[in-house]
């Protein structure tokens, strides 16, 4: 069984700051990783994914994430946050691409102050 952990429940940054949100997973085999964003009261929006290849992947709105097999991590980063980036960010893992189980972390709530 795969698990995913997000060690930071809350992160507060100022507009223009950089931010890194941490995600670690536990599973011995190949794994599919993704990040989602949820603004208050809305559904989730897909940000980016990784399965293989270049360990740094680019997503929407300036987000990128870096996969590390040695650290079992898939941390999300943004170089300069905007107030609209205030939201909850979920890391998710799946063991396959063929349509069944996606496991989400508990989420990291990001507050961007002006």
């Amino acid at each position: 069984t795969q698990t995913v952990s997000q060690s930071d429940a809350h992160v507060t940054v100022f507009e223009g700051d950089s931010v890194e949100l941490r995600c670690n997973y536990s599973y011995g085999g190949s794994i599919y990783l993704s990040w989602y964003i949820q603004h208050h009261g809305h559904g989730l929006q897909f940000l980016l994914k990784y399965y293989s290849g270049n360990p740094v992947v680019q997503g929407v709105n300036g987000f990128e994430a870096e996969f590390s097999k040695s650290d079992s991590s898939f941390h999300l980063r943004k170089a300069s946050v905007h107030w609209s980036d205030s939201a909850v960010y979920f890391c998710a893992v799946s063991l396959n691409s063929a349509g069944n189980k996606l496991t989400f972390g508990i989420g990291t709530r990001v507050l961007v102050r002006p």
Partner: protein
Amino acid sequence: AQTIHQWPVAEIKAVGSPLSLGCTIKGKSSPNLYWYWQATGGTLQQLFYSITVGQVESVVQLNLSASRPKDDQFILSTEKLLLSHSGFYLCAWSQVTYEQYFGPGTRLTVL
């Protein structure tokens, strides 16, 4: 472009009453479909998934059931609501598991 619609937007229901929530996807044929439940301030718990019409798999038992009567429609229901059913219900579609696209959600309050 694909669109995903959920109905109703919100419901307030009594304990013991029935429930039916709906989800429709337009612009995508034969998508994988999913139902999730999210407690207030919590993470997402996958409830059901479906890879084809008439076929639904349960991921977790919460006294809920799901059906896929059409390729573009996914229904979540129960005969008797519990207090613990309160929360935010999200429908999603995908072509691959790890890249899912979510609807706006339905807020359910059970009193």
